[in-house]
């Protein structure tokens, strides 16, 4: 399969549902940020030590979910092509909550602010957290832009909950990465 098609050379691209849209449209902005988020999360996984395969698997499962939510973002709501998309339910958000509780229980109680930093894997997890927050803002913008008064579809709601939980997960993941390296949180002494 060829990587380039030449169909996007004039600033437009096709949505999965067929519409030609500007590459700067709110839908593409949201989709692009989600793609960036997935890439930064990939970098977190790459920076983990060999011994952390369980965590790596968990991160890769999250990446697969981001691809699935990306497919929804690349499709106009209600289009015929949504029948090809895997339903995005509330389950992924619930799974993240369980992982958050597990990580929280294994970490010392937080009594101070932390600086984003420490081990490379932790720094990247903090970066992923901030990209995740931006992605969430972009998805909200998209939903407000397209759905107006009617509010987001159930799928979009599930994606928004997922992104919101994912930021919290990434915060704890950053802490866990530092603790796994035996260096603890980087405290803010302000």
């Amino acid at each position, binding site marked *: 399969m060829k990587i380039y*098609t*030449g*169909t996007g050379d*004039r600033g437009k691209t*096709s949505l*999965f*549902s067929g519409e*030609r849209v500007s590459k700067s449209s709110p839908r593409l902005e949201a989709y692009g940020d989600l793609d960036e988020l997935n890439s930064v999360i990939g970098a977190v996984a790459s920076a983990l030590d060999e011994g952390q395969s369980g965590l790596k698997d968990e991160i890769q499962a999250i990446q697969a979910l981001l691809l699935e939510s990306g497919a929804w973002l690349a499709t106009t709501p209600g*289009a015929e092509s949504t029948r*090809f998309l895997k339903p995005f339910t509330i389950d992924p958000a619930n799974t993240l909550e369980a992982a958050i509780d597990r990580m929280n229980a294994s970490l010392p109680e937080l009594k101070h602010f932390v600086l984003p930093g420490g081990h490379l894997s932790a720094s990247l997890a903090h970066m992923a957290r901030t990209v995740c927050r931006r992605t969430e803002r972009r998805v909200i913008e998209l939903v407000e832009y397209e759905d107006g008064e009617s509010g987001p579809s159930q799928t979009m709601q599930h994606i928004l909950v997922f992104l919101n939980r994912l930021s919290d997960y990434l915060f704890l993941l950053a802490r866990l990465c530092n603790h796994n390296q035996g260096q603890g949180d980087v405290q803010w002494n302000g």
Partner: protein
Amino acid sequence: MERVGGTPRFSARLVDRHWLAPGILELRLTRQEGVTFIPGQFLRFVMDGYERDYTMVSTPDAKTIDFCIAMVEGGRFSRDIQKADIGTPFELTGPHGHFVFQGPANSAVLVATGTGVAPFVAFCRSGLGTGLLLHGVGAPDRLIYRDILQSALPGYVPCISRPFEKMDRPDNAFAGRVTHYLEQQLTQGVYDFYLCGRGAMIRDVTALIDQQFGDSRLFIETYD
């Protein structure tokens, strides 16, 4: 039938192979119980050391799974498929792809070059044929599935890109490329364009759609 990472994998035997037109073979494979697809989808042939994709021209419930395949100079599959004996089993995965009929939202303009007409044959045979079909070929004798397409579609326009004898001119034919037809003949409007074939046609037609039919929807299947 087994599944590999969620995609079915199965084997099917070659039951028939004949020339549809110069350089274009039609293949028929047995369709095993349970093998199904949506018209417009393709199957992947898993060969010895390489894989190739081909779009079905038959309906999902037909006795055989049929394909039309353009022979490519020096092509690996092109060579292997001509040598294969009737009865040879092939390994396949699929169905794959999302190039399917998207519902009657806007009036449809189907654009194909060569064997890129395959998904539209499947649409027509499944009762989903609608709108205009431009079939771009080099010469009139390459107009495969003409009878089916002509009877199923209100607008079937063969577009013949090379000069040809007047007496060979098929009914309703346009002398020129599909892009020229779209440029010169298609009235302004909002359409659902379905493009299938080689990348160069898809790139040129997409550029034209962006310029002249901006609010249309566009679905593409690239053969390379």
